[in-house]
C-alpha cells in the first residue's frame, strides 16, 4: 500500500505529531486495559469503548485549549483523554474509588472534568448537544474566544435535541462545533436502517449551517477539517457540523457478543483503516517521526496506564455516607 500523502494544509511540528500519536495511543491502551479489567471481573459498569475512533477526538481536540468545552456521550473516554483529562483520575473513577474524578459517583457514562473543559460523558443519547451549545453561548456572551464542541454518534442525529440545538446555534451564530461520529452503527442497528441519508452532514442544510465531512480514521483529515471549523467559530462566523466517518472496532459495550455484525466488515476496517497504523505509516514514510520514537511513546503510555490501574486499585472506596452529599451546593 502506498503511503497516503499528508495534507499540505497540515504543518505540524515533530512535537505536535508526537502529541497526536501519544493521545491516540493513550486512548487505545486505556480502552484495551478496561476491556481486560471488565472481562476479568475486576471492574463493573457499562463500558462503551472508543477503540477505532481515536483519530476523531484527537484531531478535533488538538485545536482546543482552556477556553473551550467539550461534551461527550456514553462512549466518552476518548474525548476525555483528548481534552487533556488525566488517566489516573479516570481510572480511579471507573474503579469507583473516592479518588476518582467524580469521587466514584459518576462512572464511565458520567465521567467529567470541569478543570479541563470536559463537561461530561452523557448517558442520554443526544443530551450533550445542547450542553455544548450552552457552552458556546457562554463563550459568546462573555466574549471569551472559546468554542463549545459536542461529540455525538450517528444515532444521536435522530434525536430531537440534535435538531433543536443546531437550529438555535445557527440562529445565534454561536461558536459551536458539532462533531458527528458516524461509525455505521447505533447499538445493534446499522445506521442505514434509521438514517435515510448517506451523509449526516446533509442535515446541516436544515439550518443553513456550514458542513464538512472528514475521514474519521485519518487524523490528518480530521485535524484539517476541524481547524477550518474551529477557526470559523472563533472568528464569529458561526457553527459547523463536521461528520467524521469512522468505525468502532469493538462491541457496543464490553460484553457485547457482536452476533449482529459480520466479522468481515469489522476485519476490513481493522486491517485497512486503523487510525494508529495509518498515522504511523505516513509519518514514518514522510520521515517526520521514527518508529523508535513511536515505540517509546507506546512504552510511556503503557507505563502510565499500568500505574493508573495500580493507584486506582490501591485507592480507598468512597465513604457510604457520601451517597447523599453533592446533591446541592450547600449540603
Amino acid at each position, binding site marked *: 500500500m502506498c503511503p497516503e500523502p499528508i495534507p499540505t494544509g497540515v504543518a505540524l511540528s515533530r512535537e505536535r505529531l508526537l502529541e497526536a500519536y501519544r493521545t491516540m495511543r493513550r486512548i487505545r491502551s486505556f480502552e484495551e486495559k478496561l476491556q481486560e479489567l471488565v472481562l476479568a471481573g475486576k471492574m463493573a459498569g457499562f463500558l462503551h469503548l472508543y477503540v477505532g475512533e481515536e483519530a476523531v477526538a484527537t484531531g478535533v481536540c488538538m485545536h482546543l485549549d482552556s477556553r473551550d*468545552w467539550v*461534551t461527550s456521550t456514553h462512549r466518552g473516554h476518548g474525548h476525555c483523554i483528548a481534552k487533556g483529562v488525566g488517566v489516573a483520575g479516570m481510572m480511579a473513577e471507573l474503579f469507583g474509588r473516592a479518588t*476518582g*474524578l*467524580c*469521587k*466514584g*459517583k*459518576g462512572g464511565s457514562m*458520567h465521567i*467529567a*472534568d*470541569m*478543570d479541563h473543559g470536559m*463537561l*461530561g460523558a*452523557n*448517558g*442520554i443519547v443526544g*443530551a450533550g*448537544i*445542547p*450542553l*455544548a*451549545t*450552552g*457552552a*458556546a*453561548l*457562554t*463563550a459568546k*456572551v*462573555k466574549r471569551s474566544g472559546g468554542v*463549545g464542541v459536542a461529540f455525538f454518534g450517528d444515532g444521536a442525529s435522530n434525536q*430531537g*435535541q440534535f*435538531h*433543536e*440545538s443546531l*437550529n*438555535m446555534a445557527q*440562529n*445565534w451564530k454561536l461558536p459551536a462545533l458539532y462533531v458527528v461520529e458516524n461509525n455505521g452503527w447505533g447499538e445493534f442497528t446499522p445506521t442505514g436502517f434509521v438514517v435515510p441519508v448517506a451523509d449526516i452532514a446533509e442535515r446541516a442544510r436544515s439550518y443553513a449551517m456550514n458542513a464538512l465531512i472528514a475521514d474519521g480514521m485519518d487524523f490528518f483529515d480530521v485535524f484539517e477539517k476541524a481547524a477550518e471549523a474551529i477557526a470559523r467559530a472563533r472568528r464569529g462566523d458561526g457553527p459547523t457540523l463536521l461528520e467524521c466517518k469512522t468505525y468502532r472496532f469493538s462491541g457496543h459495550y464490553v460484553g457485547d457478543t457482536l452476533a449482529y455484525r459480520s466479522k468481515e466488515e469489522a476485519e476490513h476496517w481493522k486491517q485497512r483503516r486503523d487510525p494508529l497504523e495509518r498515522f504511523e505509516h505516513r509519518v514514518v514514510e514522510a520521515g517526520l517521526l521514527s518508529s523508535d520514537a513511536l515505540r517509546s511513546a507506546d512504552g510511556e503510555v503503557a507505563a502510565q496506564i499500568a500505574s493508573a490501574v495500580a493507584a486506582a486499585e490501591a485507592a480507598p472506596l468512597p465513604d457510604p455516607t457520601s451517597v447523599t*452529599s*453533592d*446533591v*446541592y*451546593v*450547600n449540603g
Partner: protein
Amino acid sequence: MSRLLSTGQAINEALAIAMETDPDVILLGEDLVGGGTREVEGTDEMGGVLGTTKGLEKRFPGRVLDTPISEMGILGTAVGAAATGLRPVAELMFMDFLGVCLDPLLNQAAKLRYMFGGKARVPLTVRTVCGAGMRAAAQHSQSLYWMTAGIPGLKTVIPSNPAEAKGLLLAAIRDDDPVVFCEAKGVLMQRGEVPEGDFTIAIGRANVVRTGADVTLVGFGATVSVALAAADALAKEGTHAEVIDLRSVAPLDEETILSSLEKTGRLVVVDESTPRCSIASDVAALCVDRGFDFLNAPVRRITAPHSPVPFAAILEDAFRPDAARVIAAVREMG
C-alpha cells in the same frame, strides 16, 4: 417603600435587579422580546406572552434572547450555559410543556453536580406558569411542581403573592443550584404591595401567614388564598386556623409544618395539583411519620381530582380546590 404591583410587574422588577447586579444573568425563551420586526415603524416588542419581560431587552441589550419553539434546546442550552459561567433564567411558557423538555432538568441540571462528584454548579432558574383557572384546558393548566419537586438536585419554589414573587425570584436566580420557579395563574392575576429595591426570600423556609391553635392549613402558590379564605370563615365559627405558606415545595420546610402540627394536632393541606404523588401526599406522609405523636385527627388532602383539567368553566371550577372543601374537611374533623 412598597407599591401595589401585579405579580407580573414584581417579576419584571426582580429580573431587572438581577440583571443589573450580575452581568452573568441572561434571559432566554420564546417571545421574551417578540416582535422581531420592531425596527419596523409602528411596531413594538411584546415582552413575553404575558408582558413579564417587557423593556428588559432595551435596558440590557444582548442579554434577553428570543428562541425558536424548542424547549428541549432552550433548557439544554441553559444548563450548558449555567455550568460554564452564566446564570441563565430560562422561560418555559407553560409548565405543561415539561413534556417536551424534561431531560435537561431530570437528567442534566439536577444531576450534573452529583455525577461530577460535586465539581459542577448549575445556577439555572426556570420560570414557568402553572395552574388552572384560565379556561386553557388540559395542556395549558397543569400544576406539575410535584414532578420537579420529586427530582433530587432541583429546588422548586412557588410564590403566593407579588412580593413573594419578587423575593423568591431574586433568591432563585442567585442560588447556585437549579431552581424551578412556578408562577401560579391564580397568583399572576393578583396585585399586592411589593417592597422596592433588592431583597430575597430564603428558599426552603415556609412562612406562617396566620397563627391559630385549632388546626393547621398548609397551602402554597394559589392555594394560600384558598386557605386564608377558609381560615376567615372558620374563625367566625370559633375555629382558629394557622395558615402556612410553603413558598418552597422542595426543599420542604418540615420543621415549620411539624411545629404547627404540634400546636394544633390537626392538619389540612391544600394543593391545586392532582392527588397522586403530590406535595399534599408528602405533607400528609410527614405528619404520620415524624408528626405521628401530635396527630389528633386524620390529615386531609384537598386537591384537584385525578383527572386532566377540563375546558368548560363549570367543570374547571369543579376541578379546582376551593375554600368550601377546606372548611368542610375541618368541620368533619370535629
